[in-house]
């Protein structure tokens, strides 16, 4: 028990210490991005890492969350701390029919179907102007005034966003940790290992996959909601592009598929790579992502976190 509790407490301590001690707003911005990508990597990992269902279309779920949150705020006046979970919920609802449709396919065919779904969602966002404002997109100019412990929250600074991202990242990692130890998590590993054998021993594989996709969509949708609230701008290219889907895959793979800590590690490495090269190349970070991912797959196919765990004496397999 202490082996699990100690890193968890350490993590929370670091999360509390960062905004209190660091005044450099660029560094805080990078930390916020890392936490946001942790949530998204964890969302993808739940489905891709545990259940082995490779999705190339998670941007669709991210977009549903982002649009839900921003529309609820701009048109309904609903504050982001309600809007973000509702964005997650909307993405989870949308994911159910997508799952029932796409899970009729297996392996690469499933992956291609999810790619098509993401393109469809992007086209809908572009053309359904009465709801999504088309290619113009939505912009948040001011956030609502809030007092916390008697202090006015400063939305122009980074700390409130850091706190929100930290909460979401903790939720995402706790969800993954719960999943790993649950019966559903065991079923997903069985599905990844051999789907027919899983059915033969009484596992309802379609239900397990649909439930997992909904869970994954909830996390991705909350990530999208956070994005809308932090960047204050949502348009189809920003939230439904294929690049976004790919980055979620990269983070989960580089960190370590089917592990709890993997998405956090993957987000740290890939955000660092992206920010290091962003000065010199405008979209170049994706090239470096690709290079980095090839190196990881070649030299440590179990991912960075997976490798670290294997080298730790006494580490359980599959964690």
């Amino acid at each position: 028990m202490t082996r699990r509790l100690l890193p968890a407490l350490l993590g929370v301590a670091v999360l509390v210490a960062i905004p209190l001690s660091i005044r450099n707003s660029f560094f805080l911005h990078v930390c916020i991005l890392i936490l946001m990508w942790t949530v998204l990597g964890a969302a993808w990992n739940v489905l891709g890492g545990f259940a082995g269902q490779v999705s190339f279309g998670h941007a669709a779920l991210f977009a549903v969350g982002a649009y839900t949150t921003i529309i609820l705020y701009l048109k309904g006046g609903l504050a982001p701390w309600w809007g973000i979970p509702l964005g997650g919920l909307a993405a989870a609802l949308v994911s159910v029919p997508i799952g029932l449709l796409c899970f009729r396919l297996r392996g690469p065919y499933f992956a291609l179907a999810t790619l098509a779904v993401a393109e469809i969602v992007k086209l809908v966002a572009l053309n359904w102007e009465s709801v999504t404002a088309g290619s113009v997109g939505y912009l948040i100019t001011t956030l609502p005034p809030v007092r916390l412990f008697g202090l006015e929250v400063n939305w122009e600074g980074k700390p409130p966003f850091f706190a929100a991202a930290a909460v979401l990242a903790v939720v995402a990692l706790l969800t993954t940790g719960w999943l790993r130890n649950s019966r559903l998590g065991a079923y997903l590993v069985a599905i990844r290992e051999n789907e027919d054998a899983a059915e033969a021993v009484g596992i309802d594989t379609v239900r397990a996959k649909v439930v997992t996709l909904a869970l994954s969509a909830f996390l991705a949708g909350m990530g999208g909601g956070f994005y809308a609230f932090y960047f204050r701008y949502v348009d189809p290219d920003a939230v439904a592009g294929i690049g976004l889907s790919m980055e979620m895959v990269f983070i989960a793979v580089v960190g370590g598929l089917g592990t709890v800590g993997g998405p956090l590690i993957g987000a740290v490495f890939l955000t660092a790579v992206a920010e290091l090269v962003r000065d010199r190349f405008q979209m170049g970070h994706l090239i470096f992502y690709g290079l980095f991912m090839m190196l990881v797959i070649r030299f440590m196919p179990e991912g960075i976190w997976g490798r670290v765990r294997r080298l730790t004496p006494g580490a359980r397999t599959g964690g």
Partner: protein
Amino acid sequence: MALLDVQGLTRHFGGVGAVFELSFSVNEGEILGLIGPNGAGKTTVFNLITGFVRPSKGTIRLDGQSVVGLRPHAVARRGIARTFQIVKPFPGLSVRENVTLAAFLRHPARKDAEAAATAQLTRVGLAGRVDELASQLTLMDQKRLEMAKALATRPRLLLLDEPMGGLNATEVDDASDLVRQIRASGVTVVLVEHVMKAIMRISDRVVVMNQGEKIAEGRPERVVEEPAVLAAYFGKRVA
């Protein structure tokens, strides 16, 4: 009443008929051998009963209740378990975890499922290998693992698809004993097998199929002398 009752079972794949108007029943507590030359449709019959393939026509009843149209997991829940001719373990998981996953069907709590899994692994003789990866087992042991997984779902009817294929003579004897012992514990068994020695020794009754149809049925020593069976296996001139 028969435990399993199959009537008029038919399945076409496109224009090709794999199983045609097949009817047979299995009594509670019986070991039924399902034999026939390669391509006779035996594995397809298993796939039809367990819901992996839907029948084009016909009925399949377990204890009077139709199982046609149920997905494989639901058929397993009703109490029909199967093994696969080409073994399908969860290769990257330990032997114990493989069987625990099957035991979850009747034991929702992990601790109970693991205990049930250990009991089945002891029964099939894999107690000493529970921590090994399934992919590292020998073929014989992988076949034992298939049986342990199927048994861990606590079936009433167990369908074994060539559990002895590829085993040597001693291993065939061990496997035969195991099948008899499974029956003694109250599980009804249907056995697809090419190892005739085993079929003759352990089945109470056999059903012979050829090209998707039933050509004979009865006690094993009688059936192998029927001209239609000899013709199916060796050609008309021998018969």
